[in-house]
């Protein structure tokens, strides 16, 4: 079925799209441990390898911690690598995430966003990856299946960029994206080979001819300087991310934006900020409310790290109200995305009202009605009505 001649239109799930995206990047070592809802992505990759459609070593590790450790071992020897996880698995990997970013290996992983026990639940929210906020990884959230595939390919380009050398985590909403089938375009191997050259590692690699010690111990006298490098790499990534997308669009005919994507924000007075699959549903609500004459817009946060601070600072001057949808909550404070957005808004001119909507926890649907209500609450709040700053959307005993 795969054609070398032209991009192929296919009806596949988000996880299969991830597998295709990874396959086209020709990784040399993959290590993964199963967890719902990530599994069908790595199963597909194992199948590609078994069918000799992808030349790659697949390591069936015994834990997520080992999955990341194994791909790190391979990355040390200069291999392009991939792993994937979710939820408890991502948290079990936590130590390794820091290890990899601090060691500066450009590993790419997929996270199927799922909540974290307890209570036990296999469905989607952003609690897992948000808990990994400070692990030093570039974190991006996709909206649909096509973007999932495209961002796998872009992820390697960003991670391996000489000024970045930082691992990338591509986040897909569990089930809603991982298990949903959509019609997408799969680029040809030739196109991807032309756009993404084979990985040529930096000096930071184990080489028999030029022996080095990697991931060494560093005394307090030097640790700060290595940490400064990580921050500089993230800052560099802010500029490189939109360039990579522009180059991708020039080659493949579609792009997805920079750190954020604005939807109908040009003259918007009230905006919602969201990440992941709920962005798509929110677009429909924006259209609907615009038809009613309301000046609403939508900001899709594509990258949570590096965070689009300047973009929100610029937005602050233009809008009267900002609502932020968080699919997790930092207990004792507020949603993590809200905290970041609010802080970034303050750094700009203007003083929009802000409301945090905690919604879509553990697979709870965020309906179009929920989203419309959020807009109306932001508008009301900007008009002087009292609204709690932080609200759980759609609690069973508080119908929206």
């Amino acid at each position, binding site marked *: *079925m795969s054609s070398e001649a032209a991009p192929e*239109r296919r*009806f596949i799930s988000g996880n299969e799209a991830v597998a295709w995206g990874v396959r086209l990047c020709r990784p040399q070592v993959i290590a993964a441990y199963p967890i*719902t*809802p990530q599994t069908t992505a790595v199963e597909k990759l194992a199948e590609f390898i078994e069918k000799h459609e992808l030349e790659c070593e697949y390591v069936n590790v015994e834990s997520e911690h080992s999955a990341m450790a194994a791909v790190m071992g391979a990355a040390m020897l200069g291999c392009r690598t991939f792993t994937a996880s979710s939820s408890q698995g991502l948290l079990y990997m936590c130590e390794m995430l820091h290890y990899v970013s601090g060691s500066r290996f450009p590993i790419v992983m997929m996270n199927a966003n799922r909540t974290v026990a307890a209570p036990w639940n*296999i*469905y989607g929210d952003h609690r897992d990856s948000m808990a990994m906020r400070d692990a030093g990884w570039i974190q991006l959230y996709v*909206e*649909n299946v096509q973007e999932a595939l495209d961002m796998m390919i872009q992820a390697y380009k960003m991670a391996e960029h000489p000024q970045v050398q930082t691992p990338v985590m591509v986040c897909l*909403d569990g*089930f*809603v*994206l991982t*298990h*949903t*089938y*959509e*019609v997408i375009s799969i680029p040809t191997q030739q196109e991807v080979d032309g756009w993404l050259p084979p990985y040529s590692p930096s000096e930071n690699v184990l080489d028999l001819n030029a022996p080095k010690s990697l991931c060494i111990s560093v005394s307090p006298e030097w640790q700060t300087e290595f940490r400064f490098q990580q921050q500089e790499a993230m800052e560099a990534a802010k500029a490189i991310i939109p360039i990579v997308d522009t180059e991708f669009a020039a080659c493949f005919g579609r792009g997805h934006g920079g750190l954020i994507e604005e939807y109908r924000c040009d003259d918007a007075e009230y905006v919602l900020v969201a990440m992941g*699959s*709920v962005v*798509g*549903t929110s*677009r*429909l609500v924006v259209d609907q409310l615009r038809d009613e004459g309301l000046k609403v817009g939508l900001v899709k946060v594509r990258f949570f790290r590096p965070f689009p601070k300047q973009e929100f600072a610029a937005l602050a001057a233009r809008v009267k109200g900002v609502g932020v949808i968080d699919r997790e909550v930092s207990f004792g404070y507020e949603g993590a995305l809200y905290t970041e957005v609010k802080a970034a808004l303050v750094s700009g001119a203007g003083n929009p009202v802000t409301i945090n909507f905690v919604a879509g926890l553990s*697979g709870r*649907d*965020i*309906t*179009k009605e929920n989203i419309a209500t959020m807009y109306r609450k932001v508008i009301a709040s900007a008009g002087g009505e009292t609204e709690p700053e932080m609200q759980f959307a759609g609690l069973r005993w508080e119908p929206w």
Partner: protein
Amino acid sequence: MLEIRWHGRGGQGGFTAARLLGMAASLYKNYYVQAFPSFGPERRGAPVLGFTRIDDKPIHDHSKVYSCDYVVVLDESLMKVVAAWEGLKPDGVMLINSARDPASFQAAPHHRVYTVDADGIVQAVLKQPVTNTAMFGALVAVSGLVSLEAALRAVELTLPPEICEPNKQVVATTYDLLKGQAVPA
């Protein structure tokens, strides 16, 4: 946008039917499509759902399906245990795998109800009680959403090669059976 809900039991291929329709629609008129199962661990025999969304514009909606243009029930016994009519639009279509007369199912006045004895057909052709392709063929006939050709091509592209031919035969059979009954949408 059209929304279709498929009722089956774990192992009956209800979600495959949802995908077959999506695949056929994407082939037929380059429609935009989405298909997804009722999320979660699948247990053989337990009632499960599949959903198909079809539109001529890109589908951005990632919320659940709350109202349906079509409901397809792969297993008649489910009619007693699930809320099959829930969310079916007033002019919506209900299609049930049953040897009984459509009138024997209590429907709201505007609902159009079709039945097809998929069990009997697949028993003869597939020799096993998997009714997803039979109900897919029947839906293609009553809805006119896609052509029979697109439906058969979708089977070829979705199912393993070794079971393609008998399933195409099943699709064509139920399609022919219901074609005459179809009311233009």
